[in-house]
């Protein structure tokens, strides 16, 4: 555990000296701010953050791959992976620390959006329940996106390829369900497949959070899928042993 913390601390400090991390953060806050101003922070609109929570699911598909792309790919490109993995640490410790580092950076990126809550409270009378559940949803969503970004960056030593791969996986994972519902005809034999795809889709499980519902099934979905992506990342690192 001590080593995980040590590695995580290094990851986080690496973010705060990296220009790309600041670019991603600025981009995220600008886009989120614009959407908040246009969708939620309007005269006459209900004092809530439902729209911005829903939109974040899409914004983060673009932002998080930028945050995670260098994580493991840069180690592979520069060769530091060799010193890292020949130190007395396990592959699991390395992956967990990489995950925590990126996730904590994401949470730091999310923190300034709490100012929206302050604004809503100043100009209206928001219900805090859905805001809290919405943030819980964002915390879980971020964990899933980060773990997939990490998996993509373990696959290549090229940061751009890592980002594009993560982006491709995320867009399919987030959007496949709604898309398949509109495209595939409702034949009896295909309904089962459609139901499975719907259940595997991020949007199905994310929406409830922004509406103030915290369902354990949705929490388990995010936690399990995050853990699975991290498990695959560990396997990719281990694969150097049989490649």
């Amino acid at each position: 555990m001590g080593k995980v913390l040590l590695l995580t601390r290094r990851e986080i400090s690496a973010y705060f000296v990296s220009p790309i991390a600041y670019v991603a953060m600025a981009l995220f806050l600008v886009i989120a701010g614009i959407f908040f101003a246009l969708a939620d922070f309007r005269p006459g609109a209900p004092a809530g953050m439902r729209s911005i929570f829903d939109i974040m699911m899409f914004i983060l598909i673009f932002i998080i791959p930028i945050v995670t792309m260098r994580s493991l790919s840069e180690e592979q490109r520069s060769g530091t992976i060799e010193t890292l993995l020949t130190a007395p640490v396990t592959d699991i410790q390395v992956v967990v620390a990489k995950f925590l580092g990126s996730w904590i950076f994401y949470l730091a990126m999310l923190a300034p959006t709490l100012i929206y809550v302050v604004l809503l409270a100043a100009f209206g009378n928001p219900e805090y329940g859905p805001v809290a559940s919405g943030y819980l949803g964002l915390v879980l969503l971020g964990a899933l996106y980060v773990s997939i970004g990490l998996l993509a960056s373990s696959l290549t030593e090229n940061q751009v390829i890592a980002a594009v791969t993560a982006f491709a996986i995320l867009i399919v994972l987030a959007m496949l369900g709604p898309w398949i519902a509109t495209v595939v005809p409702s034949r009896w034999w295909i309904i089962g497949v459609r139901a499975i795809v719907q259940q595997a889709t991020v949007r199905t499980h994310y929406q409830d959070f922004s509406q103030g519902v915290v369902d354990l099934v949705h929490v388990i979905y995010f936690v399990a899928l995050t853990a699975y992506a991290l498990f695959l990342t560990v396997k990719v690192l281990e694969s150097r042993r049989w490649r």
Partner: protein
Amino acid sequence: MCAMIEVENLTKWYGNTLAVDRATFSVEEGRIVGFLGPNGAGKSTALRILTGFLPATSGQARVNGRDVLMESLAVRSSIGYMPENVPLYPEMRVEEYLAFRAGLKDVPSPKRRAAVDRVLQRCWLKEVRRRLIGQLSKGFRQRVGLAEALVADPPVLILDEPTIGLDPTQIEETSKLIRSLGGKHTVLLSSHLLPQVEKACSHVVIIADGQIKAADSLDELKKGLAHRRQVVMELRAGDTGDGPAEVGRALGQVAGAADASTDEVGGGWLRAVVTPAADADLREGLCALVAQRGWQLREIHRLAPTLDELYARIVAGEAVTAGKEAA
């Protein structure tokens, strides 16, 4: 003395390419051993297997009595490893990086400062301790890599090309540092340049095409050379009328000589190199021949055995026997 590093029949295939072919050698405690071979001979691959970064296809390797595959973590804690090209995090400061690595290598936190100070001192890094690694020159980066390998004071050091890319002064300093590690640490350092190994090591393991061609102490290898010390002479046939070919033929027929070659060096002088067939000193016989023929002689000496020559021959796959006979 017990063997700190033992390698038995180690084989590594990359797909269809054989990188290491049934390598067997051992390194005894406290020794500084040079791991020598041309580029692409399998040095880095073998070192990566020893450090647990890559698995072997077959065969066994033990460091400090533990199997590198089965007890990987224990092996890794007893090794300080400096990979080729010294990969480092450019965004970290020297001190910060060394403290981070000390923590990863189980140096307890109260002792980390002292451990870092010790290696900063030892690797002449004091004046750059607060600099960003990315801004350091190649020589300093190399020293940071070495300091990193030393920071947890491991019993075994594995250094992959520690002196590559350094200027002669830095090479000298690094060799001195490595020499000072002997006794307390067991050091295996790879290089494709023999002179660098010669300065720091007492023993060498020579690898070429993935196979171990020789593994012995430098002194033993030199002895193996001594029995084939060539004689170099400069002489002139003068007015005896003997041509270069005739001179060469006559020299080659001196008792004990195996071969002779001649080159013209101007002014009628010939430079002849005579190779003995066995451990024989040809100088007397050659001088007698020169006197008998009435040639003029202005220089004669025996070549000192150079390892360069031996190394070149071993790598070419020829003189494996030279080392073995001596041993």
